[in-house]
């Protein structure tokens, strides 16, 4: 089986719109959350969001294409351009058909849907933008990446709510591992901060009224965010041959379905996805040193995830470090795993584990080492990234450090 490595990455988020800024924020425990004014409707539909206010796609996406896409796809294409530039891979007529694009996105063009329906139902207009449909389709992002970067290989968008990015990364990993493609652009993105969508999230009663405090006794819920991450995957020998910088090797991917509740997470389902990733990687629990948790900051997720980690890792659960970087960049839903995989790869390459900030007093139900408050130096070899979605769909990716 071919080995698969990451040679380029890009990030768009509330705490940085490029890899360096994002990593600086994670290392220093900087939060991207802010109190909402009336910009998403009056009264504010949710009290706090983590939006990428200073995101400007101009350096990464051609001007003519920006106008053809909704915000989520612009963010995804921007991250993908960063990742390709970072990797320095030449796209040639020969290589292009061998480069896949498998990207994650939960909701598609929520922003243009919201704007368009408001025109019709509230403003009394009779027309909507002629490209509303192709802007709103979730696969606008993987199509946009292909058109912008010239990748002509297998291309599809995975939509599994908050597990979208991890499902996409896993599928891309398997595509390169199996030889379906020689390289793949993967990751995921989301941008759905619009009045109607925020009202819908508020109606679910899972949105925090305070900053996101994963695993804390005082946690009040998740904080909605936007952004995403993109990764160029290559076969190991090909990457070495061209002298590429390697951020890490993807070694395992696992997924599962709870087959239970529409929104409540399930210990067994989460555990089976983690176990499946370890099995795919032929890893023992003792080899894993860091988990980037799904860690949403809801009452249900954090306790369930903690139990699932204990179930899979046994005694190793008390030795490994776990953090939820959502405490800083918020929950970017379908883009969450895309953002968080950057945290995993940077932790592997830099020997620094990002913290869980705002964790003043842990919930007694949450009894692992969550790296509270401040980043920690630790040379680690293997890390895991968890994502658990509404609908009970779980996807877990495992990565290993590659010494250059």
């Amino acid at each position: 089986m071919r080995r698969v490595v990451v040679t380029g990455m890009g990030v768009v988020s509330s705490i940085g719109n490029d890899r360096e800024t994002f990593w600086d924020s994670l290392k220093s425990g900087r939060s991207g959350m802010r109190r909402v004014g009336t910009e998403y409707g009056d009264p504010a539909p949710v009290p706090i969001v983590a939006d990428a206010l200073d995101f400007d796609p101009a350096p990464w996406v051609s001007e003519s294409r920006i106008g053809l896409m909704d915000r989520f796809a612009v963010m995804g294409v921007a991250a993908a351009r960063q990742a390709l530039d970072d990797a320095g891979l030449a796209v040639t007529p020969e290589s292009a058909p061998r480069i896949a694009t498998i990207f994650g996105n939960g909701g598609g063009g929520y922003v243009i849907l919201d704007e368009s329906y408001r025109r019709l139902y509230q403003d009394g207009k009779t027309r909507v933008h002629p490209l509303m449909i192709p802007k709103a389709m979730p696969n606008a992002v993987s199509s946009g990446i292909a058109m912008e970067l010239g990748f002509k290989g297998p291309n599809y968008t995975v939509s599994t709510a908050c597990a979208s990015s991890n499902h996409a990364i896993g599928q891309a990993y398997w595509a390169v591992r199996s030889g379906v493609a020689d390289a793949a652009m993967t990751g995921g993105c989301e941008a759905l901060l619009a009045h109607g969508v925020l009202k819908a999230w508020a109606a679910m009663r899972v949105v925090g009224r305070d900053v996101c405090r994963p695993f804390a006794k005082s946690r009040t819920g998740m904080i909605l965010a936007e952004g995403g991450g993109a990764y160029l995957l290559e076969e190991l020998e090909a990457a070495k041959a061209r002298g590429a910088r390697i951020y890490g090797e993807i070694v395992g991917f696992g997924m599962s379905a709870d087959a239970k509740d529409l929104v409540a997470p399930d210990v067994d389902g989460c555990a089976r996805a983690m176990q499946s990733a370890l099995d795919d990687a032929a890893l023992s629990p003792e080899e894993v040193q860091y988990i980037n948790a799904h860690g949403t900051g809801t009452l249900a997720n954090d306790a369930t995830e903690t139990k699932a980690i204990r179930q899979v890792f046994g005694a190793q659960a008390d030795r490994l470090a776990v953090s939820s970087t959502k405490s800083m960049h918020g929950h970017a839903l379908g883009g969450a795993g895309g953002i968080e995989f950057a945290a995993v790869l940077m932790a592997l390459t830099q020997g620094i584990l990002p913290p869980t900030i705002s964790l003043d007093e842990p919930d007694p139900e949450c009894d692992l080492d969550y790296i509270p408050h401040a980043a920690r130096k630790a040379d680690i070899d293997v890390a895991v990234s968890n994502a658990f979605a509404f609908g009970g769909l779980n996807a877990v990716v495992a990565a290993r450090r590659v010494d250059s």
Partner: protein
Amino acid sequence: MSTPQEIEAGVFEEIANELKIEAAELRVDTKISELEASSLSVMEIIFAIEERFNIELPYSANDLAGLQSLGQIVEAVENTLQSNANTA
């Protein structure tokens, strides 16, 4: 404005409708947890009550402390209606 009796009857009716049970079985000291309502049913119940009285209840899935018994829900509806009437 509705009388306390009308509010209680309305709250019980919405809960009974959602859970397909008889409103007569419900009492103010009944706990939501005793009704074997799923988390989704609880959300639907709160929504139905909000729609009926045209209010927004201070309910969070992350903070169940405030609304555990049916009496607490009735009280929350009364308080919200009262405070809306005061600010109107």
